[in-house]
């Protein structure tokens, strides 16, 4: 059930737009444009009617799994239900049609929302100030590292160019470090799946700018030695960076700021229920403690009496990091969510998220190998190594799950678990769904034993069967071309 490309639905001369006649006098383009720059050949965009555009994208939409279609326990991504009221609020004319350069007097509603959201997030994370500018988690990391670099630089501490990253860290952590001009040094995990303190101690020195840590880490485990870790890094003059991708486990339970972190980013598109959009837009606000406040990106939002305004006049700022002020409409959604839930609701979110994960872990750990058999936080990581021995890879298990109408967990991440299956159910799933998923997983474990070909041949009930990823990379076809 593949569907034609929009280009293949095109017919020369067909139109899909409704534009008013030009009401000012027509002139020749070449009168108004420089010679040699009048477009010679129109872009090869499709020519389609409105109705066929709608059909095309409707059909495509139906070929997607999504949170609204079913269970989506993609570890580390917090695929929770995205409340519909969030969508409506973000689309209010007074927000959606607001130009970013209207004088501040005319955008007080927007500024107040941003100001308050910054303060809520600061309170939630235990930090002193927050900037909403970063538009994704990785962008937050980048900004956070810039802040850290600026901090060290401001103290004349110029040799701090190393970023420590646990081997379980998400790929964006080392990539962001590199992009900030830092050197990455990996820190090992210990046999509890946590940062190995000895290894950490052996790697800290006066070149360390920061340790980036996800807590709970990507194994879904809380770093119990967080105080020691913080001490080790701080004593060496480094700072502690909190990758907030896993904050869904800790709302109202423990605040990164209280556990020693100096810089935090949050993924509003994870913890705060803004939709993932098929890969974005997200929002990755950064929070800092006092010593880093002077370096925050411009503009900051300040309140003078009852008036809100942007402040660009920050001598130590790292500068600008986004064309305007971050993903405002995404932030409206997160604001809506926080105001809907309040403190009690958010705490309940984390409690339920953690309970769901532990319940599912309990159901699955007999049939799948679990490296760290202990209470997990909002997610846990199984290993498919039992099944591998039977000739079934984690990828096969993932594909087979598709036949049950659920999205597979994150696979092969974190890298330190062999044949990893990283499962994050989130709090918005009911027990029945978890039971259904567990049954499917157990059936697959059984199939792996009794009929491995069934698993390796999966999926069977999807719009397309298994796709050749190797071929795609070997001979990249990255765009459509008109047949001549």
């Amino acid at each position: 059930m593949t569907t034609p490309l929009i280009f293949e639905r095109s017919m020369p001369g067909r139109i899909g737009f409704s534009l008013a006649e030009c009401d000012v006098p027509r002139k020749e383009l070449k009168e108004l444009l420089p010679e040699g720059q009048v477009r010679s050949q129109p872009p090869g965009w499709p020519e389609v009617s409105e109705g066929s555009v709608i059909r095309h994208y409707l059909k495509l939409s139906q070929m997607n799994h999504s949170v609204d279609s079913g269970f989506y326990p993609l570890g580390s991504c917090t695929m929770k239900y995205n409340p519909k009221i969030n969508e409506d609020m973000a689309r209010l004319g007074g927000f959606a049609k607001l130009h970013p350069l209207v004088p501040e007097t005319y955008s007080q509603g927007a500024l107040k929302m941003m100001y308050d959201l910054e303060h809520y997030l600061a309170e939630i994370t235990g930090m002193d100030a927050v900037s909403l500018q970063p538009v994704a988690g990785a962008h937050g990391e980048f900004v956070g590292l810039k802040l850290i670099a600026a901090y060290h630089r401001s103290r004349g501490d110029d040799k701090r160019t190393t970023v420590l990253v646990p081997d379980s860290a998400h790929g964006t952590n080392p990539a962001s470090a590199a992009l900030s001009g830092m050197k990455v040094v990996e820190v090992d995990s210990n046999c509890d799946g946590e940062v190995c303190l000895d290894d950490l101690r052996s790697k800290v020195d006066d070149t360390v700018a920061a340790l980036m840590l996800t807590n709970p880490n990507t194994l879904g485990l809380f770093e119990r030695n967080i105080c020691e870790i913080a001490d080790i890094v701080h004593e060496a003059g480094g700072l502690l960076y909190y990758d907030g991708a896993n904050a869904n486990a800790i709302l109202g339970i423990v605040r990164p700021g209280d556990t020693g972190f100096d810089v935090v980013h949050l993924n509003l598109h994870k913890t705060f229920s803004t939709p993932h959009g098929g890969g974005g837009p997200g929002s990755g606000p950064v929070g800092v403690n006092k010593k880093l406040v002077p370096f925050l990106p411009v503009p900051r939002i300040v309140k003078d009496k009852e008036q809100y305004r942007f402040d660009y006049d920050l001598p130590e700022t790292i500068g600008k990091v986004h064309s305007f002020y971050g993903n405002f409409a995404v932030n409206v959604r997160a604001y809506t969510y926080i105001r809907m839930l309040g403190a009690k609701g958010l705490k309940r979110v984390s409690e339920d998220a953690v309970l769901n994960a532990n319940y599912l872990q309990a159901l699955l750990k007999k049939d799948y190998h679990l490296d760290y058999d202990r209470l997990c936080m909002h997610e846990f990581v199984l290993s498919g190594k039992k099944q591998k021995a039977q000739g079934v890879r984690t990828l096969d298990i993932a594909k087979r799950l598709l036949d049950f109408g659920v999205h597979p967990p994150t696979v092969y991440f974190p890298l330190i678990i062999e044949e990893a299956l990283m499962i994050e159910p989130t709090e918005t799933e009911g027990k029945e769904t978890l039971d259904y998923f567990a049954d499917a997983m157990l059936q697959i474990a059984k199939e792996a034993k009794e009929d491995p070909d069934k698993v390796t041949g999966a999926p069977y009930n999807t719009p397309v069967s298994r796709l050749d990823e190797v071929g795609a990379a070997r001979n990249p076809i990255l765009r459509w071309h008109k047949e001549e």
Partner: protein
Amino acid sequence: MGKHYLPNTDEQRREMLAAVGLEKVEELFKDIPQGLRQKDETKLPPPMAEAVLSSHLNKLASKNNVAAVNFLGGGIYDHFAPAAINHILTRSEFYTAYTPYQPEVSQGTLQVIFEFQTMIAELTGTNVSNASLYDGATALNEAAIIALNTTRASRILVAESMHPWYRQVLATALEGLDAQLEVLPMEEGRLNADKLADNLDKDVAAVMVQSPNFFGLVEDLPALGKLLSEQKALFVVSADPISLGILEAPGNLGADVVIGEGQGMGVGQNYGGPLLGFMGVTDKLTRRIPGRVAGQTTDSKGRRGYVLTLQTREQHIRREKATSNICSNQALCALAASVYMSLMGPQGLKEVATQCLLKADYARELFTGIKGVEVLYSGHYFKEFALKLPVPAASVVEKMVEKGFFIGIDMGRFYPDMENNLLVAVTEQRTKEEIEAAAKALQEVIGA
């Protein structure tokens, strides 16, 4: 307090706890050292029920002025977005999915990306594109990184006529890297190709130009392209996608990397975000492109399908050696733009672009007919132009709002020496009547 989002009942919670071998929810958190746990409730305002929350946000939204006639630009424009776009964006199979890691159940998103890549390549005159970048400014950063890595040179030359905020974002990004950002001064609001020639050497990694530039002027891309064609340095052009309905594709004028802000293609204003960074590169830079890229392949039955490809460029595989750290991008905005491009087609885009140009021309003529108002820079422009006013722009802007117009941007916000200058954008949305009314009001404000 959001219980309607949390399906488990107290009964179920008890059952589940029991299955884990616990009695109380608190026990789930025993790995968290007691001393660290949050003692007091988070200090947040009390929760609101949906209806109350909705009226609260309606009230906030109503404190923003979106009614005044909009002549604002500076990177965000009030272009027409057909109603059909939002109807597709609200398909929750699109907006509640994530990055298409499992292609067999993500063909929708993947095909959208593949089509988006094709349309961007066609628009920009390049061959390879990606699933989107954060915005125009960070797309420029990514282009700089490509240039640094490809050329292994270190000088990044940026035209002064490039959006000053883009330049600031770039400066932030290059700080700490082995790179120097240099600004190429402008003449009459544009980069002088001859002067540039003197500046080139083999340490130059990239020359970056925006066209139409911050002042709305069309840069001399053919000359720049020619000059740079012999150079190792990459020629990076930041383009307004709407302008490409009538302006030659930069890829056809020698650009190696074309980036830009796609907001005008159906994404909306949204107080400046989310936006849509796009990028097109020549074939030889294929493996340098940042972010997600969709490629065509076949399934086990030989049917055409799409997957994320060239993943060895990316952070989740290559980690610190990745071409970029980007992970979540602006996929849904890319979908909006794809729908826009599909609906508009080549004819529609050309018409939109033409109307922008003609209406800007009409407005410029009327506005400069006012005594004391002059064009700041001569030269060809597209939909935006800068004016010299006899008085500070800020006060004119303020008075014009009172008359119902966002007449333009006080350029003093960007250049301290331009406080008497006004940047005016005119899109296809502005009617003759509105332009004339604005001219009349401006006359009154400036006359007074």
